[in-house]
């Protein structure tokens, strides 16, 4: 199998996506394309609608219109569990650790949707903290440990497209560094990654392209090599 970005294969194409929570209209026509093996980021200020974009892809918002193609398949009519079975792994903003389950159960919970996921050993080597606490109740972990668990959980399933929402949130710098390494490894394995990040310094060296969002719209697309050139514009958007 070919590894590395496959510019021909469109893993995800979102066009004209609108999303609503009840009566509030949050996304106003999002268009984006992600190819296999790419890592893209969604940047923007708080409330720009980045998390909502990921949720809309998973069909977890109140109402949405437009089109979302995954692996060339239209998914507007699909229930979330169908979308997951197309090989999408979603790591939500608020971690979603299950308190009824212990760490190991949390890890093994999501069904494997594709072959090629990581084994428990691999995961425990990557996150030794989790190994130590593997029989603790999920929500008794510290904030950071929960974040690791949430990330680790979807690596097991073999999903080949990951939607990651603020995974470095609340993590100690060492762990953040480690996560960066993990993402690079995953990219090498050919996974497609959509990353929502607040921590631009973390995201910048990893990503192939950046989308900048504001008020529920994509206002700029910046590729990795344009980054330096467009730095000041970016600063304006993000208020860094």
């Amino acid at each position, binding site marked *: 199998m070919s590894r590395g970005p496959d510019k021909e294969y469109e893993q995800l194409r979102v066009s004209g996506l609108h999303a609503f929570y009840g009566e509030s209209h949050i996304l106003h026509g999002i268009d984006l394309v992600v190819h296999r093996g790419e890592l893209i980021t969604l940047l923007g200020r708080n409330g720009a609608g980045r998390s909502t974009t990921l949720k809309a892809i998973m069909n977890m918002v109140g109402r949405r219109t437009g089109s979302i193609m995954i692996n060339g398949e239209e998914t507007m009519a699909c229930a979330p569990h169908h979308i997951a079975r197309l090989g999408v792994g979603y790591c939500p903003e608020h971690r979603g650790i299950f308190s009824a389950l212990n760490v190991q159960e949390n890890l093994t919970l999501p069904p494997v949707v594709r072959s090629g996921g990581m084994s428990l050993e691999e995961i425990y080597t990557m996150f030794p903290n989790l190994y130590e606490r593997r029989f603790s109740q999920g929500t008794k972990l510290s904030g950071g440990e929960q974040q690791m668990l949430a990330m680790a959980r979807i690596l097991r399933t073999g999903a080949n497209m990951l939607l990651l929402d603020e995974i470095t949130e609340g993590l100690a710098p060492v762990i953040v560094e480690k996560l960066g390494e993990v993402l690079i490894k995953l990219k090498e394995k050919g996974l497609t990654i959509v990353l929502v990040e607040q921590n631009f310094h973390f995201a910048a060296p990893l990503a192939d392209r950046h989308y900048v969002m504001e008020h529920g719209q994509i206002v700029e697309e910046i590729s990795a090599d344009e980054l330096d050139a467009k730095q000041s514009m970016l600063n304006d958007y*993000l208020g860094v």
Partner: protein
Amino acid sequence: MSDQFVLETRGLVKEFKGFVAVDDVNLKIQDGHIHALIGPNGAGKTTVFNLLTKFLTPTRGQILFRGDDITAMKSAAIARKGVVRSFQISAVFPHMTALENIRVALQSFEGTSFSFWKSGTSLNKLNDRCMELLDSVGLAEFANTTTVELAYGRKRALELATTLAMEPKLLLLDEPTQGMGGEDVDRVVELVKKAAEGRTVLMVEHNLSVVSRLCDRITVLAQGSVLTEGDYQSVSADPRVREVYMGTANDKAAKAQTTATQETVE
């Protein structure tokens, strides 16, 4: 002697079913300082906070506030003594306006909190102080807005203002910048600076730039016990701290400090 320390813990221990989350921690926090508690994930920082405010009961050890033993006090009593915390997840009263949120805090000094026969308008005299506090965090124009409708960053600001309304002597902040982007972080840093005038702050924070900008003194926790303590320079130069916590993120700063002596306080 000990009255230069606002807060002191002696041999603080918390065990969860055989797992020691906090292990013999001796903290000494100086009056007027902004003191940071940092450390790897799971080091026990939040747990220490919970112990200080009695959301958890210590397994062993003592907590002294201005020399008084407060180990046996209840949460509410500790809050009234002036040890007030903010939460890691924003804690507001969602269906009250911003002004009412603050008024509830102010009200606890009024002594009319059980007066169920008094008219609600009797609280209007607190409005001035509420507005002052709101203004100090830049929320004056939202005084009449229901809190649910506020953006996340503003909720955090409101929460801080509410906390300040308690006139805390010691303010405990758990990751005040978590989930915030650049501009908001700056705003919080300013807020905390302002709030720290005339009082002591103890904060947990992962954002090193915030820590370096704000804090007078830093205690590093690892696996439940104190690894080291000092100012930012000395702590960030400590190879042990870099190994367990900071990684190479701070290399630049660290390089400049290679010669600095590692000074560890007790």
